[in-house]
């Protein structure tokens, strides 16, 4: 099998992370992740460019039986028909390697082009905007380069070690390794990572709630590195379809992140329309053709938009502090309604200080009449904004009567009420704190469906998934475990139906078990691979030792005997370290197996808990409830989960009889200790 020789997921990942480590801290504060991802992509394009031509030529030879001379092959190799992308003269990885002293310049020329040469981006429509970084920037002193040639040399050397074409790497593995790198960069960047990365568990939940189907269009208005869209494709593939049976659309304001998303798409072999560089709210790029007089509509929208954006109504290029202040003074009301009135579809416009409802309304306006959406929101959208109220101010008039103030209904309240009255809110899931990078605010999932089953029309499902013990607590961040994901999915799909819940639990247990088994095998394989060399060495030494022992048995006296003895001793000594390492490996393997066994057990336990929960309505109401619209109305359209779901830990019951006995004992003990203290004090001479 060719696969045996191919790079494994783990090999590829650790090797790529090695490249990242060469550059880390060497970009003078510039975002080094874009450099690495961009270089990886460039190398992949070049390697694949060479390989695909060979592959096609071999195919031709096999099909036609024509024998090709090397010279003929060389000519044919240049034929554009054999390549997905064009690599202009002088823009190949090999040309960069040859530019020993000016690698930065060569990289820039190859990727982005210069006066003489188009570069990859110039020669391929699909690659426009993909290469955003310059490798050849001068340092602030104007004398040297920002990234020294020595570092670039080391990087190019490192990347040169491995062939990244399909000959050596399976495309899906490369795609996954790319996502792995993005996640590593996110871990590394901490708080700032929220801009380009949503934790995969959350993405998985959204995709599995929305269940994309072949032929549908899916849109992420703030797509970051494209993870949500890519995962929608993964889901389709898991369901036995092809990932490209979805139509993908995205927009990303940050050019660099946009580039990462584009590469993500190409590496996953997905075709999508990703637009970059503009704010989705002020300059939506996906408009209904041909008139372009409203937002384009999609079957599915998924989003994790920036929370509580205080400059949402400003276009990207005006988002400087100065401009924000200036615009605030002018109160640019025009922008608040949206280009197509999308931000005032329920009458009120979102407050200038907070873009959450602008994003949600953009999403609603981007859904077709049967569309569905899953949105990560700050929990504030559930309750911010009050209805019209009359309140005492706490002040009093001279005649002693309280001062009463009439407060108009808040805009956010009006929008939320409007949305609820349209019956588009299908479910709300309150998530644990701190599961997002950098977002300390409590978050929730808002599931919107424009067409809902008639029975559900006047209902909203509320899920409280933030209960302690329903997430893993890590030092910097919390994380949803497979069983936590399962819990949320069972609640959302069951929608309060106990019969359905039973089947769902079985399905998810099966699915997660399979996924865990796969992950376990991969991890075990990685450990075995890591120690392969050592094991080889230990086996060889052990064989030598056996031979030496046999030789020693054969001779019994004289110089030969002592020599044989020495050899045995020497080999025994040499074997100590590798054997210890092998023992260490076995320990690691055992630990890994144990961990996965525990994870599987946890899944089963959670499954059993869920089944029990759906048999006990009182308990279930502490986790999930299907709430009638009338109740939401009674709560003044405040959707805060604790109003509907019994989220509070009940007070521990105290048995009065027991408490009385305890008190009596405590009373006696107190009396006794007071008496003995008094006796001791009495003995003191003052």
């Amino acid at each position, binding site marked *: 099998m060719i696969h045996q020789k191919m790079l494994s997921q783990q090999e590829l990942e650790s090797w790529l992370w090695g490249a990242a480590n060469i550059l880390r801290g060497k970009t003078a504060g510039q975002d080094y992740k874009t450099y690495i991802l961009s270089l990886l992509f460039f190398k992949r394009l070049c390697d694949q460019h060479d390989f695909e031509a060979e592959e096609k030529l071999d195919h031709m030879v096999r099909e036609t039986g024509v024998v090709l001379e090397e010279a003929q092959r060389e000519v044919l190799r240049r034929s554009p028909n054999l390549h997905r992308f064009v690599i202009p003269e002088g823009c190949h990885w090999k040309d960069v390697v040859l530019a020993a002293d000016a690698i930065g310049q060569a990289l820039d020329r190859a990727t982005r082009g210069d006066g003489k040469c188009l570069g990859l981006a110039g020669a391929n429509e699909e690659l426009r905007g993909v290469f955003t970084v310059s490798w050849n920037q001068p340092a602030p002193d104007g004398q040297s380069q920002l990234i020294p040639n020595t570092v670039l040399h080391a990087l190019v050397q490192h990347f040169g070690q491995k062939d990244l074409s399909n000959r050596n790497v399976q495309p899906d593995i490369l795609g996954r390794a790319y996502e792995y790198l993005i996640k590593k960069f996110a871990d590394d960047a901490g708080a700032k990572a929220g801009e380009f990365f949503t934790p995969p568990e959350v993405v998985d939940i959204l995709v599995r709630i929305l269940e994309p189907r072949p032929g549908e269009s899916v849109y992420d208005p703030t797509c970051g590195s494209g993870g949500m869209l890519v995962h929608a494709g993964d889901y389709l593939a898991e369901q036995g379809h092809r990932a490209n049976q979805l139509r993908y659309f995205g927009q990303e304001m940050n050019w660099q992140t946009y580039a990462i998303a584009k590469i993500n798409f190409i590496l996953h072999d997905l075709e999508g329309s990703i637009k970059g560089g503009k704010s989705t709210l002020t300059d939506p790029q996906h408009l209904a053709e041909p008139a372009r007089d409203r937002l384009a509509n999609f079957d599915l929208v998924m989003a994790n938009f920036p929370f509580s954006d205080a400059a949402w109504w400003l276009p990207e290029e005006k988002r400087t502090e100065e401009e924000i202040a200036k615009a605030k003074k002018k109160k640019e009301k025009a922008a608040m309604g949206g280009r197509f009135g999308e931000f005032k579809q329920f009458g009120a416009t979102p407050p200038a200080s907070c873009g959450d409802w602008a994003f949600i309304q953009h999403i609603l306006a981007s859904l077709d009449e049967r569309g569905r959406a899953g949105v990560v929101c700050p929990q504030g959208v559930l309750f*911010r904004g009050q209805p019209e109220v009359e309140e005492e101010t706490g002040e009093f008039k001279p005649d002693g009567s309280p001062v009463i103030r009439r407060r108009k209904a808040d805009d956010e309240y009006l929008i939320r009420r409007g949305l609820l009255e349209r019956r588009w809110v299908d479910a709300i899931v309150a998530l644990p704190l701190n599961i997002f990078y950098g977002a300390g605010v409590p978050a929730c999932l808002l599931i919107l469906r424009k067409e809902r089953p008639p029975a559900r029309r006047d209902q909203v499902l509320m899920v409280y998934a933030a209960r302690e013990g329903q997430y893993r607590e890590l030092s910097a961040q919390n994380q949803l475990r497979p069983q936590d994901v399962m819990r949320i999915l069972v609640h959302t799909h069951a929608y309060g139906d106990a019969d359905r819940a039973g089947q769902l639990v079985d399905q998810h247990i099966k699915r997660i078990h399979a996924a865990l088994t796969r992950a376990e095998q991969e991890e075990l394989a990685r450990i075995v691979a890591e120690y392969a060399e050592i094991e080889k060495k230990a086996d060889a030494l052990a064989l030598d030792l056996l031979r030496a022992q046999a030789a020693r048995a054969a001779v019994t006296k004289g110089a030969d005997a002592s020599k044989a003895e020495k050899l045995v001793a020497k080999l025994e000594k040499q074997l100590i370290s590798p054997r210890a390492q092998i023992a260490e490996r076995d320990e690691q393997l055992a630990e890994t197996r144990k961990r996965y066994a525990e994870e599987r057990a946890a899944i089963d336990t959670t499954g059993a808990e869920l089944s029990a929960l759906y048999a006990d309505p009182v308990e279930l109401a502490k986790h999930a409830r299907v709430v*009638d619209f009338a109740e939401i109305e009674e709560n003044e359209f405040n959707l805060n989960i604790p109003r509907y779901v019994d*989220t*509070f830990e009940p007070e521990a019951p*105290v048995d*009065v009889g027991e408490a*009385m006995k305890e008190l009596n004992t405590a009373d006696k003990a*107190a009396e006794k200790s*007071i008496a003995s203290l008094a006796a001791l004090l009495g003995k003191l001479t003052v």
Partner: protein
Amino acid sequence: MSSRGKLWGCQIFREEGLPPGWEYVPVGELLDLEYGAALSEEKRVPGPIPVYGSSGVVGSHNEAFVSGPGIVVGRKGTIGAVTYVPTDFWPIDTTYWVQPKRDGNKRYLEALLDYLKLGRLNAATGVPGLSRRDALALSVFLAPPNEQAAIARILDATDTAIKRAHGAAEKANRVRFGLLQRMLGSGLNGHGSQATKVGPVPKNWDVSTVGQEFEVSTGFTLGEHRKPKVNRRRYLRVANVQRGFIKLDDVSELEARDYEMEERTLAVDDLLVVEGHADPKQIGRCAIVLPEAAGLTFQNHLFRLRPKRVLPKFGEIWLNGLQCQLYWQRTCATSSGLNTINQRKLKALPIAVPSPDEQQQVVELATAAETTCRAVKIRLAALERLKRGLMQDLLTGRVRVKAAESLIAATA
């Protein structure tokens, strides 16, 4: 379409459990919450009228705003806190005060409001401060008037006992504090005192140093190589060592070989001293190792003191004494960050050592005082628990008054 009612998720009383003959009513039908009135400190004229904020009395004034008895509910600050006021009073504008709409027992009403845990509504509203529209939407089980009075009487009696127990606990603490100060300052037999670096100590006691009286050593420095793997050892850190006792409910692990443990294992009667703390009052706090902590190891932010001659318990009493506390505060307080002592400073710390007999006496007295403090505290906790239990039973009607009274009578 059916609704389970406003704020269903926050309801403590749910209609299903309503006792026969009782009423299920929204708080809004029983009472109104009125805004307190602003009364800044400058405007107050000290007088007989207590001024109430969210958490209780905050001052006095010569004029009442509400005639008593009444109930104050925290609106901002201590949100949802419920206080019964027996007299006329002035509730300030961070509070609501209760205006009953029906005749009824105010102590009972206070207990009901308290039982509702209004503070939880803060999480449900999403607006800081107690929303009275929400508070009034909660429902309660309402007992018939005579039962209200009976319940109020029982809870009142419990409150009185709690108040008394509070007083006793405070007094016990004062006795202990005074006793220790006297013993460590001028001794047991009135020989007068002598001056040292840490202040006056009894004249007839020998002044020595920690370095002379104890073997001092430090624990393991944590780091990557100490992450627990094969040789896992339970170790104590600063949080485990409290003043006068070791807390073992949360003990972490580190990696250490056998030979490394030889020097750093805790034995019964060792003392542990805290090296640094953000709060200068906490540095140098000390606890003796009891059998349950023996065999554990410790981290480098703790010192282990192994007594050479002095009674270990006397050492603990001395190191936790007021002289040492003040000494560390004087010498180690920094304006920012962590306050630390080092081994050199610790070894140089004076310790006044009396004769073995007198040490024994000091230990006995201090222990007796400590035991008393603990005993009265336990009694207070038991009373508070009892009150919680009574509220659970009586306010929900799960146990009716007659039955409760006979239960108390039987066990008293």
